[in-house]
């Protein structure tokens, strides 16, 4: 295929494979633009998000605590990272394996680290970067050059340096390198504690929300971003008690000095209070509003990553709010010029009712553990059998709560 044509193709991650990582003994999933994972606590949802993060660290060139933490992956010693399901000696594999594919490229690595006396960085056992059928980087212990390579430094990261943007292999690697797992928490959103992983536009725990919000609100006035204003207006009904919101200097708003740990704070104007006394900050506001704004920044900020995950996107939200937010996240992702790809976990059944799953780019996965404890990920197919349930008055949330699509604990 001529190179020019490659450049116009989507570089979204369409398939992800993981082996021997935590509870994911062997999993293969086909991803869309919005991928929602539901399942019992401990079923392995977060492990899957982390597996993508480990591959992102490998694409960056180094898999150590620092690069994992940067991506929101909990660093772990090999005894925790490698699956430890009982099995026969011949079936044991010493490495963990990850592979991501886009329509025109693929990247696969296997990583090693001894269970006893592990080193701080994981070693690359194999690496393979392909553009179509063409191999762009290949590491194997059987190659003569293997002994000369630094096992802790990814070969692909070095060899892909010269690939231009728009090359499907480069795009796939960039998506993986920039992938992070966001998991906001209330103290960070309120600005009470620092975000250990702060970055532009927003930290993985929600740090820098006031600045990111301010940038987002300003960006709507840019000539090339006219639709952004309409998308921001879609947030308004979700924070219906607020007349408007934005950010302000912490010195300019009513805030206890003890709570002001950041120079800027999220600012709301309460619809019901007297005009001269209706300003309140993220410190005092409903935490649900902060989680809504956090999700909006992740989805809409011009500098947000193309591919990322939000763990527990529904936390602190009323079910109706969670449902509406789910709808908006899908809408924003599907309308995104940068072809956003988002992986989401949630526990609120109402989220399922907000998903426009008839669009194949929005996918719902149910995560369970089989009798051996292996995480099993199944995509819920929107077929006639499921649609007939809808015709009979069922909702997806009720189907889930009744255990009819799996992904619920036996309690």
């Amino acid at each position, binding site marked *: 295929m001529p190179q020019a044509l490659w450049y116009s193709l989507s570089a979204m991650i369409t398939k992800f494979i993981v082996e021997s990582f935590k509870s994911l003994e062997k999993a293969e999933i086909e991803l869309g633009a919005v991928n929602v994972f539901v399942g019992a606590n401990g079923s392995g949802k977060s492990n899957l998000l982390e597996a993508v993060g480990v591959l992102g660290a490998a694409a960056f060139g180094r898999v150590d605590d620092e690069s994992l933490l940067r991506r929101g992956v909990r660093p772990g010693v090999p005894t925790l990272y490698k699956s430890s399901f009982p099995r026969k000696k011949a079936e044991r594999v010493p490495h963990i394996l990850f592979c991501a594919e886009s329509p025109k490229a693929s990247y696969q690595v296997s990583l090693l680290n001894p269970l006893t006396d592990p080193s701080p960085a994981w070693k690359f056992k194999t690496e393979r970067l392909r553009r179509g059928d063409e191999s762009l980087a290949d590491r194997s212990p059987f190659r003569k050059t293997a002994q000369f390579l630094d096992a802790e430094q990814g070969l692909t990261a070095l060899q892909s340096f010269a690939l231009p943007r728009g090359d499907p292999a480069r795009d796939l690697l960039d998506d993986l390198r920039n992938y992070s797992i966001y998991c906001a928490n209330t103290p960070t959103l309120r600005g009470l504690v620092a975000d250990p992983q702060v970055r532009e536009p927003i930290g993985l725990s929600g740090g820098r929300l006031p600045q990111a919000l301010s940038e987002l609100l300003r960006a709507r006035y840019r000539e090339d971003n006219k639709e952004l204003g309409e998308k921001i*207006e879609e947030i*308004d*009904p979700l924070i*219906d008690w607020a*007349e408007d919101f934005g950010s302000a200097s912490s010195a300019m708003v009513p805030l206890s000095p003890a709570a002001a740990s950041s120079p800027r704070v999220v600012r709301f104007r309460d*619809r019901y209070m007297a005009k001269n006394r209706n300003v309140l900050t993220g410190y005092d506001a409903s935490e649900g509003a902060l989680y809504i704004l956090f999700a909006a920044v992740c989805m809409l900020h011009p500098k947000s990553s193309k591919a990322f995950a939000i763990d527990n996107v529904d936390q602190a939200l009323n079910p*109706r709010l969670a449902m509406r937010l789910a*709808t908006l996240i899908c809408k924003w992702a599907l309308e995104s010029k940068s072809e956003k790809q988002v992986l989401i976990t949630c526990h609120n059944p109402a989220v*399922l*009712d*907000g*998903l*426009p*799953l*008839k669009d194949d780019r929005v996918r719902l996965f149910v995560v369970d553990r089989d009798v051996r404890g292996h995480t099993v990920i199944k995509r819920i197919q*929107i077929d006639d059998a*499921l*649609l007939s*349930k*809808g*015709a009979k*008055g*069922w*909702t*997806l*949330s*009720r189907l889930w709560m009744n255990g009819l699509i799996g992904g619920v604990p036996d309690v």
Partner: protein
Amino acid sequence: MSDPVRIALVAEGPTDKIVIEAAIRGILGDTPFIIQQLQPEQSQVFLDPAIGTGWGGVYRWCRKAVERASGLIEQDILFATYRMLILHLDAEVAAESYGNAGIIDSENDLPFAEPCPPASATTDQLRLILLRWIGRATLPARTVLCTPSKNTEAWVLCALYPKDGIVTAGGVECFGSPENRLNAKPQDGKVIRSGKKHSEAYKKRAHEISGAWNRLRNLCSEAERFSRDFESFIQAENAGQV
């Protein structure tokens, strides 16, 4: 301190709720109340995106409620929390067919056409249809119907733009598309822009609708009918007759 009046509302859309809430503020004045919009339980994946919610959502809610209450809507569980149910349906629904909302209904009572004026020729018939949806021939206790003509935007037009030609000429209730008039208004304070209703703009101007309510009652017969029915309910309830 007495509990505020809790009102359950089944309305076609979110901006209808804002307008009806403003209307009730106009009627009740400083008396506190809580209004909650009820929605049919549904999943996006099972909805036809071409159909959406709107009046079809009102229909679906009514049918579900009848099922839930075994035919006696006044015994529905909602009345354990709410003192009153308001069912809203715009008069323009008279021109719709059930198929437009993906509904299969054995009674072929939609669409129908009646001359306007009077608006009541259409709304009277529509109210009977709405009652049929909740399985009744007459209005059940603790239920008030709200049937603006042709739609709630007629009320918004009267409240926010009293000098509009359609308003001053009278007969705003028979004007086909008050939303287009609102869409054509000057940018500042516009509630409909590019054909899209902006909830936040409606909310910002809701107090103007409340303030203009008494004037609006004289301009729109359906606003007057809704006010009268609402006031009658409140009076009856205060007298312990409900």
